[in-house]
């Protein structure tokens, strides 16, 4: 039995305070004038009309910024706080209005007259690679943190490969059956309901306090101190609650701008993005085009494979946090299978589209759609069958995966068999075509990240746990409480868990990569040990864990989609998605199940509706009226079967679950559509219209 979540009552009664709810004395508001062009030079900025609006405290452009270098980023510093010369995307910030209210700031921002000289725009990843393509950044290798060199190639943000192309090609030449198809997915947005917001409060004494919808407070602190030359000890990122993250709230966002404006005006500066602005200016999921080639021998065994991904990174690389500035989900595309020769390339290019960053299992939903569609096609075309071909090729005990690792256990076959053996009690609409499709996903368990934590004696025997990271909804703080409760034999009400500011704990690597529970659990376990040994005259224990890893391992999910298609319209109804999920111990069963369900619904959205509608250098889905997210009436029946008994990691012996079920869904649905109709949709989202025209033309699976 899991106890109810720690934050439930505060959230249900409206008492929980989010960043947008914070009000400071003397606070002013900011609104930004953003570029309407994907690529242009700024000729002139006329702020005179805006400045005269009653309530406007100041209008600022790049020239006014109190920084040595007007650039920031998560890894690569290539994002301007305000653009000085050249806008590289629709939505680039050009000027900022500070005013007494948000509405005045917004109205005045529209009165800023910017004169542009348009430049040619690169609006697709392919154009970016053409030999005469306009350079989006003249010398990208000079940016702090850049991973490219002048030799990497034109307009490239990051290029990662694994394996040998020649060997894989040779293996494919020897294959009996081959599939060679290309799959595409659109730009997407994390779809958190809380738009990004922040407050920066700079004092003349050189100290800065920040409230922000940011999951990585310590990284944010470091970026701010580096950009503004502030002493990191005097930059304090305050605790907050995140109204959803899904990877989108790791970047500094508008905090550098608000910090600059707070320095300039001497006031606390607040910015709350309108949702339309969030859709336009934050860091969603990369649009992808992935060509997959797979070959099998006459027993159906994979002999070789190549996956080549071209990803649209948009105007800036600065929103990707990892060392490679790439998306490891792409490189890991074949992680569940035995492929003797596998080559993968992940190429992310600069374009004049919105910059892209991380979204729930970065790269994996795209890669899983491509790879799991391709293997399905190969199974159907070769006559082996889509399930059988997976059974033949999934890794099993002792195997080495295409990346040279041998996991503690491989549970792909088991989850596959669970997902495909559930009873069907569905009502299928009369006259509709019915089909089933399966897809699989495996995720290596990320290394345990660095974090820190403190336990304190509170009043009346209470234990207070101070944690470094915000609660993003996944239930990390509840996990902390549960561990302390059982570890120290206390009742829930004797434990308080709270996030503290960055000044009060040493470090944290930030929420992400399903690592919250894991990193925190290691720290809590260590702290409990110390607490038990704590001398009576001591009031607190503090632990800092280092990055570590429990040996190569991973977790699996398999999904079966049951769909019906109306042959007269192509309308697709996903009736049920069965998720079979590989688990070890489960710390909080409700939170665990919600990760599975929430992930599946997100995968469903990616599969059938979400699309920023990027075209001609502009996302056209600029409100939730056009950017559709699944509602409760849209979603299929969600069924879950757990494959218990796995070998987990960390002190609680767990397997990460947060990024398992949103990855295979798109492929499961497309595979089911192929099963139902005989037509293959290789582009997400799977649209009724695409099915309709494909059925008219007549297709093959």
């Amino acid at each position: 039995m899991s106890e109810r979540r720690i934050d439930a009552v505060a959230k249900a009664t409206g008492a929980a305070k989010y960043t947008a709810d914070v009000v400071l004395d003397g606070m002013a508001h900011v609104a930004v004038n953003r570029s309407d062009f994907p690529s242009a030079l700024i000729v002139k900025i006329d702020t005179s009309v805006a400045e005269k609006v009653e309530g406007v405290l100041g209008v600022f452009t790049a020239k006014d910024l109190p920084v040595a270098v007007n650039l920031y980023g998560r890894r690569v510093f290539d994002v301007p706080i305000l653009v000085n010369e050249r806008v590289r995307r629709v939505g680039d910030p050009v000027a900022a209005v500070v005013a007494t209210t948000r509405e005045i700031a917004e109205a005045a921002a529209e009165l800023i007259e910017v004169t542009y000289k348009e430049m040619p725009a690169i609006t697709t990843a392919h154009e970016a690679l053409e030999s005469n393509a306009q350079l989006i950044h003249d010398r990208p290798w000079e940016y702090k943190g850049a991973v490219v060199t002048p030799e990497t190639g034109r307009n490239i943000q990051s290029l990662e490969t694994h394996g040998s192309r020649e060997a894989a090609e040779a293996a494919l030449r020897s294959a009996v059956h081959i599939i060679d198809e290309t799959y595409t997915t659109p730009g997407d947005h994390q779809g958190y309901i809380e738009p990004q917001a922040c407050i920066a409060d700079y004092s003349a004494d050189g100290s800065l306090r920040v409230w922000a919808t940011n999951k990585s407070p310590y990284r944010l602190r470091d970026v701010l101190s580096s950009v503004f030359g502030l002493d990191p000890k005097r930059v304090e990122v305050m605790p907050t609650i995140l109204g959803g993250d899904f990877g989108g709230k790791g970047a500094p966002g508008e905090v550098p701008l608000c910090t600059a404006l707070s320095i300039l005006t001497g006031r606390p500066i607040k910015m709350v993005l309108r949702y339309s602005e969030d859709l336009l200016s934050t860091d969603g999921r990369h649009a992808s085009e992935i060509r997959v080639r797979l070959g099998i021998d006459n027993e159906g065994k994979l002999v070789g494979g190549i996956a080549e991904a071209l990803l649209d990174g948009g105007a800036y690389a600065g929103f990707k946090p990892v060392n490679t500035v790439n998306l490891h989900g792409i490189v890991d595309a074949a992680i569940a299978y035995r492929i003797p020769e596998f080559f993968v390339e992940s190429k992310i290019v600069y374009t004049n589209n919105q910059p892209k960053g991380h979204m729930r299992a970065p790269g994996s939903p795209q890669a899983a759609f491509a790879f799991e569609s391709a293997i399905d096609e190969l199974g159907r075309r070769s006559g082996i069958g889509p399930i059988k071909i997976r059974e033949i090729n999934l890794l099993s005990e002792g195997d080495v995966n295409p990346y040279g690792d041998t996991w503690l256990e491989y549970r792909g076959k088991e989850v596959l068999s669970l997902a495909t053996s559930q009873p069907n009690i569905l009502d299928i609409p009369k006259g509709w075509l019915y089909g089933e499709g399966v897809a699989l996903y495996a995720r290596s368990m990320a290394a345990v990240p660095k974090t820190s934590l403190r336990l304190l004696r509170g009043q009346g025997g209470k234990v207070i746990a101070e944690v470094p990271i915000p609660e993003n909804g996944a239930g990390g703080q509840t996990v902390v409480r549960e561990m302390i409760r059982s570890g120290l034999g206390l009742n829930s009400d004797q434990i308080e868990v709270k996030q503290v500011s960055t000044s009060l704990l040493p470090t944290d690597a930030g929420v992400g990569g399903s690592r919250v529970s894991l990193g925190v659990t290691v720290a809590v376990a260590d702290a409990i040990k110390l607490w038990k040994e704590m001398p009576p005259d001591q009031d607190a224990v503090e632990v800092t864990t280092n990055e570590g890893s429990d040996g190569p391992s991973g977790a699996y999910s398999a999904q079966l989609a049951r769909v019906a298609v109306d042959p007269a319209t192509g309308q697709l109804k996903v009736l049920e998605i069965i998720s079979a999920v590989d688990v070890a111990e489960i710390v909080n069963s409700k939170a665990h199940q919600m990760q599975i369900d929430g992930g599946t619904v997100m995968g469903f959205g990616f599969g059938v509706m979400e699309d920023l509608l990027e075209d001609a250098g502009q996302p056209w889905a600029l409100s939730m009226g056009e950017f559709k997210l699944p509602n409760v009436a849209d979603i299929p029946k969600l069924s879950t079967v757990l494959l218990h008994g796995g070998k987990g990691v960390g002190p609680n012996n767990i397997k990460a679950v947060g990024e398992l079920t949103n990855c295979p869904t798109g492929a499961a649905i497309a595979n089911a559509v192929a099963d139902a109709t005989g037509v293959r949709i290789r582009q997400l989202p799977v649209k009724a219209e695409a099915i309709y025209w494909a059925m008219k033309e007549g297709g093959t699976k």
Partner: protein
Amino acid sequence: MQSTDTEFLIPTSVSEALRNIAKEDAIFLGGGTSTALLYKTRMIEPARVVWLGNVGELKGMFASPTEVKIGSMVTMAEIAADREIARLLPGVSSAAGVIGNARVRAMATLGGALAHADPRQDLPPALIAVDAKVSVRGGSSSREINLSDFYEGFLETVLAPDELITEVTIPIIPNRHSSYLRYTPTSEGDYPTVGAGASLTFNGDGKSISTAKLALCGVGAVPIVSSEANLVLAGTTGDDSVLRRAADMVREAVDPQDDERGSADYKRDMAVVFAYRALKACLVS
């Protein structure tokens, strides 16, 4: 907050409302759902807003054996919840019940839903299919307009700025069956790709059709009325092949645009499918 100079008047009678509207840049306000959106994005900046929420005369809903009258300030939720309307005018009832979401339905009014004139809106085709007439009062005159003649273009109606929709009258005709179907392939919470309202009125024998009406939304700058459907169906017994032929006539009548809800070609094909289904639904209802 953004502008404190918009006057906000709250008349309590139609005549007061009409006096209030006699000012440059004055607009009526019903539920405010579309007006608030336009206002907050600074697309409109009216000098005066005349809110009709306290005009009791506009809130009535009456059903008699010969007609249904719905006041312009009746909300979508009230229309959808009304049992008599569900029985007499199932298409209208279901159209009112699917618009947007529960909050939009609670706020949006009949007058606003008609005057807004977004061609994707559900209610107009459902009402046109049952011969709805719009009663309008202006400063010095009043008139009745067939809803089928009400729309002039995208967000444009025949209303003068100082004309107020007071009510909508729908004749109740014996042996008439009506329906409304919408097609939302992406999300149920979306505007329809196409919506089709239909009615079939049968002769005394209960079998042969005397009149057929068909109207569509989402496939033109205004709601599309297919008069050809009547030519094909009148006098027949509505056999499947005839229904299909009638539905096929909309192919020429519609004028859809490519957008995120579908290409023009797809919408044209879907208009035919849903025209057929809406007509067919009138047979079984």
